[in-house]
């Protein structure tokens, strides 16, 4: 892990709705994630975790403050630039996997490469290779419906990695999996996804995987209330 910052959020504010229906999801969040770091965002439901990773991933605009990913602030990018930046630099892993059900495992993994302009066949070949590396060699041509939850999450991880992004955001990657499978998925994420120039931000409720984190940021009511270096340091 280097000391350089992958993500730097300063006084980030995000509000949903207007007037009486106004809800302040982020109330001036400060957060730093270093290159090569696995940062976990934890906290009760509705505390703003998902909003924060949406802002970090550039799929949600914040209202105030600054949020830089590798020194680039999404607020200062045009819509097209933002989409391009996301396509090249961000990988996503979702709670419900969000694989395209009509595509095979390899085709799903190939999607980010195709979005970035690679020819389909070349992208699918590279996807098949990567699936081999995450232990899914024999499932390359399987549809998502033919895969178990753990296998689908492996495919989703491969999809998040295939285009070699610099930041991977994961939303509850283990919540739909049993303890053993969740553990394996986290081991896989930590082994293949982390690198010196890449950072991982994981939103989770699952305390069983806190041990995989380099640092844990605890959120409550739109604030980061604590950043701990291990689960043991966390206030209860």
């Amino acid at each position, binding site marked *: 892990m280097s000391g350089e910052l992958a993500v730097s959020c300063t006084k980030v504010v995000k509000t949903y709705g207007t007037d009486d229906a106004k809800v302040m999801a982020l109330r001036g969040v400060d957060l730093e994630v270093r290159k090569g770091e696995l940062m976990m965002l934890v906290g009760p439901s509705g505390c703003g975790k998902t909003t924060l990773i949406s802002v970090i991933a550039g799929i949600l605009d914040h209202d105030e403050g600054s949020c830089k990913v590798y020194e680039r602030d999404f607020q200062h990018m045009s819509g097209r630039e933002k989409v391009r930046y996301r396509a090249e630099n961000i990988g996503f892993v979702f709670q419900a996997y969000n694989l395209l059900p009509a595509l095979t495992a390899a085709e799903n993994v190939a999607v980010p490469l195709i979005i970035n302009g690679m020819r389909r066949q070349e992208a699918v070949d590279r996807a098949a290779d990567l699936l081999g590396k995450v232990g899914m060699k024999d499932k390359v041509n399987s549809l998502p419906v033919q895969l178990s939850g753990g296998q689908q999450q492996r495919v989703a991880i491969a999809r998040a990695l295939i285009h070699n992004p610099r930041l991977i955001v994961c*939303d509850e990657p283990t919540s739909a999996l049993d303890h053993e499978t969740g553990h394996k998925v986290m081991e896989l994420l930590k082994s293949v996804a982390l690198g010196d120039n890449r950072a991982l931000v994981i939103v989770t409720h699952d305390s069983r995987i806190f041990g995989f984190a380099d640092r844990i940021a605890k959120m409550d009511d739109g604030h980061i209330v604590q950043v701990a270096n291990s689960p043991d340091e966390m206030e209860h």
Partner: protein
Amino acid sequence: MYYTALKMLMGDKSKYLGIVMGLTFASFIMTQQPAIFVGLMARTFSFMTDLSQPDVWAMDPKVQYIDDIKPIQDTELYRVRGVEGVDWAMPLYKGLLKARLENGNFQTCNVIGLDDATLIGGPPIMLEGKLEDLRKSDAVIVDIEGAAGKLARTLPNGKRVALKTGDTLELNDKRAIVVGIARTTRTFQSQPVVYTTYTRAIKYAPRERKLLSFILVKAKPGEDLPALTKRITERTGLAAYTREQFQQVTMNYYLKYTGIPINFGTAVILGFIIGAAIAGQTFYNFTLDNLKQFGVLKAMGTTNGTLLKMILLQALTVGSIGYGLGVGAASFFGYMIRDSVLAFMLPWQLLVLSGVAVTLICIFAALISIRKVMKLEPAIVFKG
């Protein structure tokens, strides 16, 4: 991404089939109903279609369509023959006369009287006998549809036997002997067609001072037909039309004074609306069901432009398939009824029109879906 779009489209088979079926139905209705309409309209002037020789038809100026007979004096024929640019002009009698059948019933027939010398205006295809046989005493030629249908004899055992050469008819209490059976294009009124000579036809017809229905005119080679029709009108006071003009006049009458266009137009518009509703709704539902997938693609960096093209491709794909199936089904319908009394004509213009209509439905279906996807927040992907 287009491959992904097509796989997304065909991945949900029930929805995919639903959209295709909706468009097939719309395409079928929007092709089949107008084809019947065009077939019916073509029948209004089919008698003219069968008469290919004359270039110009001259008649009483008050005639509104081919079956609207307003007889003129025989002497008008000689006046027309005297007009510059006329190669030849022949008389034609056309009238509805009652034929008495063997069982005592009466059947109205469309009696055509041809010029005695040249027999110009005769049936296009002779199935039995020869056109020249009309020169025999009391001779008539009957069309096959009439001979086998309304003029057929009923045997004591109830079996119907088609009229054949050698059989006799009574036309207005006068004997007529069938000397031939012809095939003619079915007319709008579907009456049996009986051909005979002009002289004999006016004997069959009730006594009137004027009996000449039309004057068939052949222009001299190289003659400008619209100019000739104008000249005939100026010199004789008769109405004169080229064949195409008279077909148009006849068709216009049916379009203006009958409910046929409204009836068929209603069916076509209903087909369009129902097709648009089914296809639009199903396609919109399909997009809603796939909204999260579009959100995932959007989050991963797919531009709105690419998503728009993906949805258009999906809509145009189902449109093309639905159009092909619908037009194919309409053509098959036309093929199956080719020997029946039903009218059906499928010109290329109709295929283009229904294609345009199906494309409009697809664009409509795509637009309502595109709007939803364009406004989609990619952050939806993080909602459980």
